[in-house]
C-alpha cells in the first residue's frame, strides 16, 4: 500500500507552549484516518502542518511524497482542506462559493461534478442562497464540496462534525465512506469518540503527543482490564458511591451507565453490599466490552 502522509518526529512550539512533540505516524492511500483528542490536544496544529500552513520546528512531514516545508507550492495543488471554523464567504451564495474555489484551483464545477454530486445535490436547491444563511449541516456540506471541487488526492478535515446535528453527522460519515471509491485519502479529526469507530485507523492525541495509532477494534482490544458497566436510576449518587468503594480503580460516567475497573479484576459481592449501604439498590452490574473512550481514558491516566 502506498503511503500518503509520513510524519517523522514532528515537534512544534508556540512561544513556551509545546503544541506538538515527537509525532510519528503514516497514513496509507485510500484510508480514512482519524485523530481523536480533546480540545487543545494539538489536532489543528498538526493539520496545519500537513496542509503546509505551518512549518514544524522539528522533524519532517512528507505528504504525497513532497516535503510540506519545501514543496508547498506543488502540494497546494493537490490538497483539499476544510478548516475547523466555517471559512467560506458568507456574503457569497452557495453557487458563487463553489465556482470561486473551482476557478482558484483551475477547474470548473462541471468537470468534477460527478465527485461532489452526492454531497452537493443536498444543497443544490439552495444554490442562490447566501452561505451565511445556511444551517450548520448545509454549511458543512458546502464546505466539503468546495474542498473537493478540484479532486484532491488528500482531503484534510478539521473537526468537520463539530456543531452539527446527529443526523447530519451520520450522513457526513456516509459521504466520506463513498469518497473512498474515488481514491481520495481522508484525514479527519473529531472530539467525538463514537465517530472513531467509523475510521479505518485512529490516532489518539493528547497534550501534543500521539499516544496510539491503530485500527479502532485493535484499540478497544488493547484495554487490558475487565470492565464493568454499572447501571442504577440515580446515576450521580451511583458514581459517587462507586468512587468511594475502596477497590475501585477507575469509574467514569458513560452514557446511561458507569464504567468501572476494579483492582485485580475481581468482582465479588462486597461491591453490591457497598452500594446497598450507600442507598443504591437494584444496581445492575455486567461485564462490558471496552470502547475507544475507555481506552483513551486509561491511556490518559497512565500518562499522568
Amino acid at each position: 500500500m502506498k503511503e500518503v502522509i509520513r510524519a517523522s518526529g514532528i515537534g512544534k512550539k508556540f512561544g513556551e507552549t509545546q503544541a506538538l512533540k515527537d509525532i510519528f505516524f503514516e497514513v496509507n492511500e485510500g484510508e480514512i484516518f482519524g485523530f481523536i483528542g480533546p480540545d487543545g490536544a494539538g489536532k489543528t496544529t498538526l493539520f496545519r502542518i500537513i496542509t503546509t500552513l505551518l512549518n514544524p520546528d522539528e522533524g519532517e512531514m512528507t505528504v504525497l511524497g513532497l516535503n510540506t516545508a519545501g514543496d508547498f507550492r506543488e502540494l497546494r495543488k493537490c490538497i483539499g482542506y476544510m478548516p475547523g471554523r466555517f471559512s467560506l464567504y458568507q456574503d457569497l451564495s452557495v453557487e458563487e462559493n463553489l465556482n470561486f474555489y473551482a476557478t482558484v484551483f483551475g477547474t470548473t464545477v462541471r468537470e468534477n461534478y460527478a465527485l461532489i454530486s452526492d454531497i452537493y445535490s443536498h444543497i443544490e436547491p439552495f444554490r442562490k442562497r447566501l452561505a451565511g444563511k445556511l444551517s450548520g449541516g448545509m454549511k458543512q456540506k458546502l464546505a466539503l464540496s468546495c474542498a473537493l471541487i478540484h479532486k484532491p488526492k488528500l482531503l484534510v478535515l478539521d473537526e468537520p462534525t463539530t456543531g452539527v446535528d446527529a443526523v447530519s453527522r451520520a450522513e457526513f460519515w456516509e459521504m466520506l465512506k463513498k469518497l473512498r471509491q474515488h481514491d481520495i485519502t481522508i484525514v479527519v479529526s473529531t472530539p467525538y469518540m463514537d465517530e472513531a469507530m467509523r475510521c479505518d485507523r485512529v490516532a489518539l492525541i493528547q497534550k501534543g503527543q500521539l499516544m496510539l495509532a491503530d485500527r479502532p477494534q485493535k484499540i478497544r482490544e488493547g484495554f487490558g482490564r475487565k470492565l464493568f458497566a454499572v447501571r442504577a436510576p440515580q446515576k450521580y449518587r451511583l458514581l459517587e458511591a462507586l468512587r468511594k468503594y475502596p477497590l475501585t480503580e477507575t469509574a467514569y460516567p458513560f452514557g446511561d451507565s458507569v464504567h468501572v475497573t476494579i483492582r485485580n479484576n475481581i468482582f465479588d459481592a462486597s461491591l453490591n453490599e457497598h452500594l446497598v449501604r450507600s442507598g443504591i439498590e437494584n444496581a445492575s452490574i455486567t461485564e462490558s466490552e471496552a470502547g475507544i473512550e475507555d481506552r483513551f481514558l486509561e491511556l490518559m491516566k497512565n500518562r499522568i
Partner: protein
Amino acid sequence: MKRFLGFVKKEFLHIFRDFRTLIILFGIPTAQILIFGFVVSTDIKDAGVAFLDLSNDDVTQKISDKICSSGFFRREEDLHSYNDIDLVMKKGKARAVIVFGENFGRSLTGQGKASMIIITDGSEPNTATLITNYATAIVTDFNREYTGSGLSGAVLLQPEVRMFYNPGLKGHYMFVPGVITLIMILICALMTSITITREKEFGTMEVLLVSPLKPMQIILGKVTPYFLLSFINVIMILLLSYFVFDLPVKGSLALLLAESMLYILMSLSLGILISTVSRTMQQAIFISFLGLMLPTILLSGFIFPIENMPKVYDVVASIMPPRYFIVIIKNIMIKGTGFGFVWKETLILTLMTVLFIGLSVRNFKVRLE
C-alpha cells in the same frame, strides 16, 4: 489569468453585496466635498455688521453703504451709544461693529483724516481677521475714490493686491484638491487593508493559502476592483467640484487623471502593506486612520504650509505621500501647469508605489505564522 479574474469577480461581489463598503466608497467622498466646500468656507458672505455712527453725515453714509453693498456684509443694526456695542456682539447678531468718530466728514475734508474703528469678535480669530481685511479693503477703496475725486490734495499710495490663480481667494480652490488627496489615500488604504484582514479574521485566508494562488495574484486581485472604483470616485469628485463649485481643471485633464491613477495605486499598495502587518480588521482600521488621516491633514500642506513648520516636521512631512500629490494636483488643477513642473513629485510617488508593492509581496505570509 482565469484564477486572477475569478478572484477579481469575487471581490466585486463582496463590494456590491456590502452596503457599508459602498457608502464608504462613494458616500463619504461626496459628503466630504460638500461639507468642506460649503461649511468649512473661509469666505465671508453676508456677515452681520452693526454701525455706530456718531457724526451721521453723508460721508459716513457713503462708506457704510459701500460696505453693505459689497455683498460681504449685511447691515444688522444701527447703534446709538458705545454701551450697545458689547450687547450686540454678545448677542452674536453682529460679527463686527464699525464706529465712525464725531465730525467724520468735516475732519476728513478739513484735516485729511478721520477716525474710524472696526471692532470684531476676537473669539473667532479667523473670521475676525477676514472681516478686518475685507472691511479695510473696502474702506481703502473708498479712500481712493474719495481722494481721486480731487477733494483733497493728499494722494495716498495704495498697494494693489491681486491673487493669481485664485483671484477671489475662494476656499474651494484649496479644499477640493485637499479633499481628493485626503479621501483617496484614506479610502484606498482603509478598504484594501480591511478586505485582506477580513479574510484573515474570518478564516478564509487559511483556505486561500492552501490553494495554488500566488501572493501576487491575491494582492492584485484585491487591488484591481478598488482601483477601478476609486478611479470612478476621482472622476465623480471632479465633476462635483466643477458643477457645484465652478472649479475648472485648468491644466490637462488627461494628465490629472493619470496622476490620480498613480496616487490611487500608491494608496492601495500602502493599504496592502498595512494589511500584511496587521492581524485584525481593528488593527488595520486603527493604523489607516491614525497613521494616515492626521499626518495627511497636518503634514501634507493641505491646511498648514510646510514651509512654516520646524525642520523636524518638514522631514517627517517629506515621507508623507499626500504631500507630493497635493503639489501635483494643485499645479494641474489651479495653476494649469504641465508635466514639466510636477515630474519630480510624480517620480517620488512612483518610487513609493514600487517600494510599497515590493514590501507587501515580501511581507505577505504564505503560511499562517
